[in-house]
């Protein structure tokens, strides 16, 4: 069995529960009368407290205790939910997350939160001591032990229903024998006649003489689970006086404790269904194995094709089919609905709208859209920035909106949808839209573009994602301005995705992030440059054309191809890569694109399409920007995967420079 750390499981679980708690609290904030939500919040707190204490997170248990009690009071109608309470509870949720992430560092920070809680919910909450671990098997409430005894005489009879409830006299006797030498006498004097005998009722009683210096507590513990309703006499040896008070009630009594109320709650969100949680690393490991299998299979296919052995070919085809199926299944396992991510932004919007004094209607859709888990994780940051930007800078103040004839409440929509082999995630607002004039001025001032550069609106829009770009007229503490938006473009590059911006002045802006469905295995087009082979992600390939001889021969400065009346810049990969070998006679151009931007890549030969398992490059090659990773081919050698986004950017820079030169040339 592999080593599992339950504390780690608790951490993961707590993340889920806290996320769910946050959603529940936000829902509760929208509808303070929904008792099912109060129940849900209570249960989440209850789980965190219980499990937290179990796995050593005592700070968490201590802190959560009062919140649990508060929500228990709400449940019972002793107090009423309020917006203020929801806010405090959201703060508490954040605090709990910190306590779990970094134990022994933040306990003090909980004090003001609890103070606020008490101020809201009132005096009903005593700062009760949180539960401490007690030994379940030996509750300390038995009568004082008579330690000096040489042994005990124990007479007992089980309650009638004990057998059907699962009690076993044999086990009890065994347990007594563990304490010391026992002489056991069973009495059948109450045994009814055979026709009246109910086999499920225990009619025997026992008389046990136990020679042991154990305490009375130890003897009583043996009967811990059956003592209710049983007859039990325990007397020290040799005296044999009967005792009637031996069966003490188990468990400490606490009259101040609140009654439990009903424990079944309808309308609570279903949690686990029949799903299974697996550590992400294991999925990564599985995918690695599948990747290796795909590679080995490609190799086998190659060998089989060369051998022309029909039975080998048959098996190979079978294996090809199986490994393709396994690959698809594995990829499927890694797919997670994006709703898990969307949920987090409700909180962001809630906080932002409060801080900025903007009333925001935040609507999400397409939560069921599935994406590779890794991709979803890396989308969190970029989306925070895009949504922040939409609220902070897109949406106008309620007054300005009213003046412009818009509803005072602004709208931000977050949606996800599949578009072919891509997922499109869209953030749109009905705010003021992007100010292209200001973007241009700013870009010129910061030297991003030449003052006379001709840029389309969409090119200008995309500049907001440029590192360091900012159009802030006043710096707001919340968005941090230009800082951050470049995170979006960097992340999208890393994910092989792209950004589209659409904006209409006065009507709002839409930012669309387009991503490939998965990151791990892609279809690639193999090309050759000199004697090296490279893979180009097929999703980026638009078409392949022959490099016209006049251009191939022509001057190095005019690196443009005319493709259907559009000029497309091209890069000679052999120049870029410093290839020494002589070039092939008929050079090919692979036209690749990201969004609207296209660039041609000149190669020696197009070898065909293959499945490509992406392996990342080590840090030693982190500076080599033209490659997105490497893959292992059928023959076992390594091929590099071209970073299309990066190449397109180089192409664009080249194009811009050239166009500027042309413009200047014309002006002169």
């Amino acid at each position, binding site marked *: 069995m592999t080593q599992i750390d339950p504390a780690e499981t608790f951490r993961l679980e707590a993340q889920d529960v806290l996320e769910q708690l946050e959603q529940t609290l936000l829902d509760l904030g929208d509808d303070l009368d929904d008792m099912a939500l109060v129940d849900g919040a209570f249960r989440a707190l209850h789980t965190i407290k219980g499990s937290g204490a179990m796995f050593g997170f005592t700070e968490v248990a201590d802190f959560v205790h009062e919140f649990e009690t508060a929500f228990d009071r709400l449940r019972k109608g002793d107090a009423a939910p309020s917006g203020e309470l929801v806010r405090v509870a959201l703060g508490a949720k954040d605090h709990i997350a910190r306590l779990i992430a970094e134990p022994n560092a933040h306990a003090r920070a909980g004090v003001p939160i609890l103070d606020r809680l008490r101020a809201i919910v009132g005096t009903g909450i005593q700062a009760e001591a949180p539960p401490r671990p007690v030994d379940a098997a030996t509750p300390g409430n038995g009568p004082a032990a008579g330690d000096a005894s040489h042994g005990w005489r124990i007479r007992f009879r089980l309650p009638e229903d004990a057998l059907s409830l699962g009690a076993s006299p044999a086990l009890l006797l065994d347990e007594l024998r563990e304490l010391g030498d026992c002489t056991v006498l069973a009495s059948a004097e109450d045994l009814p006649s055979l026709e009246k005998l109910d086999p499920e009722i225990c009619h025997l009683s026992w008389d046990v003489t136990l020679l042991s210096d154990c305490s009375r507590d130890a003897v009583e513990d043996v009967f811990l689970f059956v003592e209710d309703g049983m007859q039990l006499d325990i007397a020290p040896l040799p005296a044999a006086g009967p005792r009637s008070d031996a069966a003490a009630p188990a468990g400490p009594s606490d009259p101040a404790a609140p009654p439990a109320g009903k424990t079944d709650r309808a309308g609570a969100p279903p949690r686990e269904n029949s799903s299974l949680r697996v550590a992400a690393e294991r999925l990564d490991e599985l995918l690695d194995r599948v*990747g290796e299998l795909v590679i080995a299979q490609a190799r086998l296919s190659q060998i089989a094709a060369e051998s022309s052995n029909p039975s080998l070919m048959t098996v190979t085809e079978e294996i090809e089919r199986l490994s393709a199926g396994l690959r698809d299944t594995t990829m499927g396992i890694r797919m997670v609905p994006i709703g898990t991510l969307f949920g987090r932004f409700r909180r962001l919007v809630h906080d932002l709208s409060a801080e900025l004094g903007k009333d925001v209607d935040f609507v999400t859709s397409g939560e069921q859209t599935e994406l590779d888990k890794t991709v979803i994780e890396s989308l969190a940051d970029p989306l925070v920035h895009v949504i922040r930007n939409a609220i902070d800078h897109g949406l106008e103040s309620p007054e300005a909106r009213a003046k412009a004839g818009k509803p005072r409440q602004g709208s931000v929509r977050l949606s996800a949808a599949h578009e072919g082999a891509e997922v499109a995630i869209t953030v749109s607002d009905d705010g003021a839209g992007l100010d292209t004039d200001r973007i241009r001025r700013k870009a010129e001032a910061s030297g991003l573009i030449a003052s006379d550069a001709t840029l389309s609106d969409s090119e200008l829009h995309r500049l907001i994602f440029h590192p360091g770009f900012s159009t802030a007229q006043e710096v707001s503490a919340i968005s941090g301005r230009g800082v951050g938006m470049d995170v979006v473009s960097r992340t999208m590059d890393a994910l092989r995705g792209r950004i589209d911006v659409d904006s209409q002045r006065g009507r709002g802006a839409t930012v669309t992030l387009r991503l490939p469905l998965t990151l791990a295995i892609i279809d690639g087009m193999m090309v050759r440059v000199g004697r090296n082979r490279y893979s180009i992600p097929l999703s980026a390939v638009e078409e392949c054309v022959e490099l016209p001889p006049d251009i191939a021969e022509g001057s190095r400065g005019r690196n443009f191809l005319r493709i259907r009346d559009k000029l497309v810049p091209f890069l000679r990969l052999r120049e870029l890569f410093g290839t020494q070998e002589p070039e092939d006679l008929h050079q090919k151009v692979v036209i690749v694109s990201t969004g609207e931007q296209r660039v041609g890549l000149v190669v020696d030969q197009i070898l065909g399409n293959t499945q490509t398992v992406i392996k990342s490059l*080590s840090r*030693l090659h982190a500076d080599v920007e033209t490659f997105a990773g*490497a893959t*292992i081919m059928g023959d076992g050698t390594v091929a*590099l995967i071209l970073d299309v986004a990066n190449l397109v950017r180089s192409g664009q820079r080249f194009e811009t420079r050239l166009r500027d030169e042309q413009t200047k040339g014309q002006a002169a």
Partner: protein
Amino acid sequence: MTQHARDIDAVPAGEAMRALTLDVGGEVFAIEATSVREILDMVPVTEVPNAPAFVAGLINVRGRVVPLADLRVKFGMEHRPPDDDTRIVVFEITLEEEPTVVGMLADRVHTVCDIALSTMEPAPKVGMRWRPEFVRGIAKHDGNFIIVPEMNRVFSTEGAGTANSENETRAG
């Protein structure tokens, strides 16, 4: 893994280091045996255009893409085509706090032996062809001098950089 822990791993009380010895450019180098994953015969190498000369290639090690380093570049030795004795030593280093598996070319691999640390002397500050920070010490074994390189520093991305810095290395 800390140095201390490794020494304890290797032999009694940190007095010796269990090491794999190998030839590169006519010198004998020692790599701590505990970090070595495997030793391979020469395999096809994929060049990485525009990569630092020190790690100009990639190889496939059991389905894993591993950078292939050539110590000769860092130690200013002349390039030499592989022959029948050439081996690739695959071992683990720590790069920016991440364990990283790398391959390294060796002209010939000798043996695993225990190098007495008492015979190891710090690299001389002057009169050495190599950057002193790349050398942990010079040890003596069977009458031969053995260079114990500071692998984490040799591979550190800082200054792994461009051909220029490599030239500097040669000059210094």
